[in-house]
């Protein structure tokens, strides 16, 4: 083996190594491309949606898919495709903000809990356990019951239910990282506690956090749509996908496209985030594999 080949192996950074492995996962790469496409479509909604999300067309009420309305129209003659494109903005924003918020709080608590240990760790983890005792969508519903229905409150609700998941995950990783040689070494040369947590431990928790964040995006979008579907999230004129489904259910058998189209949108988006999460898990850390 020549000297240059050895050098190339030596300089392969974790980021490049990750990219090399991620590129090999065809499904994950396609999912990422799909997510980027969905984000672009949502961002450009005002320019690419053929009609406004609330523009009625009373000459074309409850019409099936046609060249004029590619995904048909609803009871007010509103264009379903345009509403889906606008609805993507809501779903992606709600998913993203709730995950970022829940993740930020959860990661902070997790690092603090794992790093300091002792009674603080005991207390924080018991609180997280109690939060996890409320199953599934229940904590989100409790928060909405408290704050009132609406899409902004849904963001808080979903963020809060994500906190214990991230806190537990990051605490575990922090405990493991605390024992590693490089953290012990930094500690022995007198690196401050804040520096240890921020520069040496926090980055080490990121691979697992990124995987969970992607999987959590799928869950959050699904939960937000479910809350809107049962009437606790986005309210009727809003083109949120769950709310659109709820509108469409009265026309099952009459105008199926009202239910099929927004449902497909939710399914494809959630599936893409879940597949991306799986791919990231495989590429980031072999140990995270289940």
């Amino acid at each position, binding site marked *: 083996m020549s000297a240059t080949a050895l050098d190339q192996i030596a300089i392969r950074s974790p980021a490049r190594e990750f990219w090399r492995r991620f590129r090999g996962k065809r499904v994950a790469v396609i999912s990422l491309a799909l997510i980027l496409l969905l984000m672009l479509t949502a961002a450009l909604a005002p320019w690419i949606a053929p009609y406004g999300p609330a523009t009625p067309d009373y000459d074309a009420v409850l019409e099936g898919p046609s060249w004029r309305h590619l995904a048909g129209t609803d009871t007010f003659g509103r264009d379903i495709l345009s509403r889906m494109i606008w609805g993507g903005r809501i779903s992606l924003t709600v998913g993203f903000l709730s995950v970022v918020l829940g993740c930020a709080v959860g990661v902070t608590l997790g690092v603090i809990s794992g790093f300091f240990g002792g009674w603080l760790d005991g207390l924080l983890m*018991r*609180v997280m*356990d*109690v939060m996890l*005792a*409320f*199953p*599934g*969508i*229940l904590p989100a*519903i*409790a928060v*909405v*019951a*408290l704050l009132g*229905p609406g899409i902004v409150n849904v963001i808080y609700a979903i963020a809060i239910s994500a906190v214990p998941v991230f806190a537990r995950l990051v605490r575990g990783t922090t405990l493991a990282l605390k024992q590693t040689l490089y953290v012990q070494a930094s500690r022995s040369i007198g690196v401050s506690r804040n520096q240890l947590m921020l520069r040496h431990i926090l980055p080490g928790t990121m691979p697992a956090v990124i995987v969970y964040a992607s999987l959590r995006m*799928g869950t959050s979008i*699904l939960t937000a*749509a*479910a809350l809107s*579907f*049962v*009437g*606790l999230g986005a309210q009727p004129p809003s083109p949120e996908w*769950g709310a659109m*489904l709820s509108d*469409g*259910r009265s026309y*099952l*058998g009459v105008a*199926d496209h009202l*239910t*099929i189209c927004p*449902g497909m949108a*939710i*399914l494809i988006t*959630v*599936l893409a985030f*879940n*597949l991306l999460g*799986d791919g990231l898990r495989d590429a980031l850390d072999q140990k995270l594999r*289940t």
Partner: protein
Amino acid sequence: MFGYLIRRLVGTIPVLLAVSVFVFAFVHLLPGDPARMVAGPDASFEQVQEVRTELWLDRPIWQQYLRYLDQMAHFELGRSIKTHEPVAFLIGQRFMPTLWLTVVSMAWALTAGVALGVLSGVRRGGWEDQATMVFAVSGISFPSFWLGLMLIDLFSVRLGWLPTGGYGGWQHFVMPAFTLGSAVAAVMARFTRSAYVEVAAEDYVRTARSKGVPERRVIWTHTLRNALIPVITLTGLQFGFLLGGAIVVETVFAWPGLGRLLIDSVNLRDYPVIQAEILLFAFEFVLINLIVDVLYGLVDPEIRLK
């Protein structure tokens, strides 16, 4: 075994107490005066004061909490603000439909999930494996309420084979249970597969195979029995998922259960009902996990010693 049982029971008490503190705090976090809420918007100042004294709202918060615990212990859950019926009665009516729905859903999801997982593990890399893994990832991505609506569209509206909703005979269970259980079946399949694959790589499995134990016995006795132990724990956790999922699925199928009662109560801001329901859901989940832990102890003697 008995000591283990006692330890697990005692360990559950602090969790239940903590849950009750959360749920008790819930009503106190609400904006506005709880006494005014119960008395109604038309009540006079004196009537509001009367309610305040009656509900101990003028006492220190710890006394209120102890009273709350005492009432819970006697199933005194207050009255609905809207219908004035006792909350215990409202919940009692709705309890069995939800319990049956979750049990039936879990039964098919567990059977199908484990079967698919094992099939996929045995035929690793084959088309059965690939198909199962596609099902596993799409199963958790499917919006349950959408799946429910699509089933109604096909089997009720178009074919007329099954009722669109409501509670009754087995026909009423088919679509709601399928809808609610599909995500759990998907999770089970994936988990069972990885547990199976892990155990199949153990030395004792290789030894069994090399000494000429028939393949059927290697799969059933040596591998499957050990692979199923972690599946028990997952079952407990997935019950929680079903309880949460029932809230949405009951809305789709007009199922007269706890989930729909909860959604209706949130929409009506009927706080005594909401509070009692949240407590009930959490308690049920904690108790199911307790039962699962005990089962785990029965199956795996090592756990009992920890």
